């Protein structure tokens, strides 16, 4: 995506529908958006999807938004590790488990 502002609610929901265990959006630092408010819009959409996930009993922690600049490679690695750890602790998503059960009924 050219900007997190282009990420819509449905893109995140479709990822969960596909059975992913977690999704995180990485946008530019707040106040540094080339399109002014793209990352702020993304954050609001992330909050909406978190509410949707909670409303149907899925863990909202599976979705996260982070902000950092393109020059912060080390921080990016930290975030990736943090998110991976969080998802590992949560375990596979209920949707993924149901999909696997459907594909391998034995």
């Amino acid at each position: 995506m050219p900007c997190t502002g282009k990420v819509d609610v449905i893109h995140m929901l479709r990822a969960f529908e596909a059975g992913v265990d977690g999704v995180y959006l990485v946008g530019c630092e707040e106040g540094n958006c080339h399109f002014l408010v793209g990352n702020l819009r993304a954050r609001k959409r992330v909050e909406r999807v978190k509410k949707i996930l909670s409303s149907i009993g899925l863990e909202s922690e599976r979705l996260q938004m982070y902000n950092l600049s393109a020059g912060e490679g080390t921080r990016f690695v930290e975030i990736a590790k943090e998110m991976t750890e969080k998802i590992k602790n949560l375990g596979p998503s209920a949707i993924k488990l149901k999909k696997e059960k459907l594909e391998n009924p034995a």
Partner: protein
Amino acid sequence: MIIGEGKPIQEILAMIADKKKILVVGCKGCVTVCSAGGQKEVEILSSTIRLAREKEDNPIEIREETLERQCDPEYLEQMRSYIDDYEAVVSLACGAGVQFTAEKYRRIPVYPGINTNFIGVTVEQGVWSERCQACGSCILHKTGGICPIARCSKSLLNGPCGGSSKGKCEIDPDVECGWQLIYDRLRELESLELFEEVVPIKDWSTGRDGGPRRIIREDLKS
């Protein structure tokens, strides 16, 4: 336009609990503009329903459609070829659209996916506010273009009442006093003589008190 907002998902899930194949239908009219029932909301609701049902090990098949309008028969007719393949319709149109869909397709249940709230305007992105109660007898020419029926909490025709304080209504400090707005606007227009004019008792038979309303235009009728 008509303003609505999405129903809580659990309410919708309860409506379709025993269904396996449904149609979620949006409307490209008012509810698209107020982000309650357009194509985007159809996609989001459908995805949410699929996720919820998948989680419960009770998958559901959903067809997503968004009609030009659900309050006109020619657009509703577009569903004729496929609607019988489904067990229920969740309509994201306003209450008028939901009812008209149910009226045209009598063999299938039609459920509301949104709550219809009021006739209003977009104050800013994400903020909508009531402006009209469709009373059927407009007096905006006497009130500076501000409707006392919709904007005064008591719908007073000769206001303000004693509950007006510093421009706010007694029901809530965030609600502006409709009659203060009318007074200020008439003063701006240098038409305060209209404020002194006593508005007679309103004939409410043109509003809901006269029962369900309809308009017949003989010049347009086929």
